[in-house]
């Protein structure tokens, strides 16, 4: 994965967010405050603006992190910003990122998310998606593993529907949070899907709306 690929991943994600903003807002409306799609789109639009100036994968991600940090706010802002910052740090000095390097970066990102937010698997947060998806690529650092990660991420996001939220805004609803998928898990799963589209020949975007609502 060279700097072009990394950019393609993020541009692809930003474009995808344009399409799913309403969906993410709607999920957040049901168990949170209705702004997750708006937050993500605002953040990635701004964060992707000057990526052309970044010379390496690490620099691209650093710019993304700073862009998110200064525009998103909310809970997702610091979490995604931390994730990209840690990945950027893991890739410092590298021109070409192998899938193994990718796995290292994702593990660092996941650790960052958990450190900042204190959530564990099962708390109905984006950690529920980052953990299994990262695990897929770590245990099988191949194109196949990346494709599996996208599948696992989707499944994990859908599985959050059954969970009672214990972190984030949805946790105030207690049992009433059951029945709706966690918006941050869905946005994370789409990030892994976009990654797979960038890296895996023949991968295509799968629609979300029907399954997730």
């Amino acid at each position: 994965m060279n700097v072009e690929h990394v950019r393609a991943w993020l541009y692809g994600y930003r474009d995808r967010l344009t399409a799913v903003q309403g969906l993410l807002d709607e999920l957040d409306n049901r168990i949170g405050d209705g702004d997750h799609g708006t937050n993500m789109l605002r953040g990635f639009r701004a964060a992707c603006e000057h990526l052309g100036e970044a010379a390496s994968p690490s620099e691209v991600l650093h710019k993304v992190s700073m862009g998110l940090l200064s525009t998103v706010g909310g809970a997702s802002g610091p979490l995604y910003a931390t994730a990209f910052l840690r990945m950027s740090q893991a890739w410092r000095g590298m021109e070409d990122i192998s899938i193994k390097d990718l796995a290292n970066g994702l593990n660092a990102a996941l650790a960052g998310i958990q450190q900042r937010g204190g959530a564990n698997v099962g708390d109905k947060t984006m950690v529920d998606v980052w953990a299994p998806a990262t695990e897929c690529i770590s245990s099988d650092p191949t194109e196949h593993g990346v494709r599996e990660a996208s599948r696992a991420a989707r499944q994990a996001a859908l599985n959050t529907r059954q969970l009672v939220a214990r972190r984030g805004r949805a946790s105030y609803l207690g049992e009433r949070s059951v029945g709706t998928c966690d918006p941050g898990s869905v946005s994370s799963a789409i990030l892994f899907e976009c990654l797979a589209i960038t890296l895996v020949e023949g991968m295509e975007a799968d629609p979300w709306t029907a399954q997730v609502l």
Partner: protein
Amino acid sequence: MNVLHPNPDRFVTDMLDGFVRSYPGLARLQGTQVVVRAQFDRKVGLVSGGGSGHEPAHAGYVGYGMLDAAVAGQIFTSPTPNEVLSAIRAVNQGFGVLLVIKNYTGDVMNFEMAAEMAQDEGIAVEKVIVADDVAVENSTFTIGRRGVAGTVFVHKIAGASAQRGDSLQEVKRIADKVAARVFSMGLALSPCTLPTTGKSSFELPAGQVEIGIGIHGEPGVRRGPIAPLAELVDTLISRIVEESSLGENDEVALMINGMGATPLGELSICARYATARLDDLGVKIYKSLVGEYMTSLNMAGFSVTVLKLDSELKSLLDAPAHAPAWR
């Protein structure tokens, strides 16, 4: 209202512009969504903030004896660390800065990141986290309670402490003390409408109320049938009394807070029943605040806040303050 703002991106900045134009003692930090005092006193700085949509919070509490800066995020979205950092830098007069944070994941993370950045620059920063909403069960498995209208008492009392020249540690001690003694709970009779999208924050069937709401248009902890105001007030007070073990001879400050679309007349009726109920319990009301202090856009509903006082808190509560929304 139901007016969609033609340019949602400008909603918050238009609002802050209108606000600072209306109050000569306030200013907006250029290029930010931070409202500050037009001039700072040599004292510990006080910074609060959070998502927008809670007006008059938080900019309405900027002024002599209260906050030095309020940081406004997008609607219901915590401000970014950069914005909070700008506020910290602006108010720091060399005596350190206290951050008043409402206990929401987003607020806590963004303010904490800003605090870390400020500390890196050598600014002494402390924080108080307000978690006064007794609707939410307090459990070690969750992130704990939300911060709601009780935060205004922290602004006032910690603000008075800073204004009289207390040290950062002392201001923090007092702020923590208020946070430990303040209890709130609210309910809604209708959702709020996001002015940027025109959407309702939840659906509520006719004849139902959402009990135990937050201040971001979230649904409540449970639903119940609509009841006369006296009973609704009772539901809230009962839970507050339970959680605060309020009893005879306690002295309190009482706040009846409108959520944005509740007529003041109805808030007075709530005040009447809340007062009567506290009287029955032998609780003495030292001071009452009735009005809009921490709203949720155009939500119809109200919250009740009780702050347990002692002589230290009473004198700080009574100290003069001049901020647009304090009276």
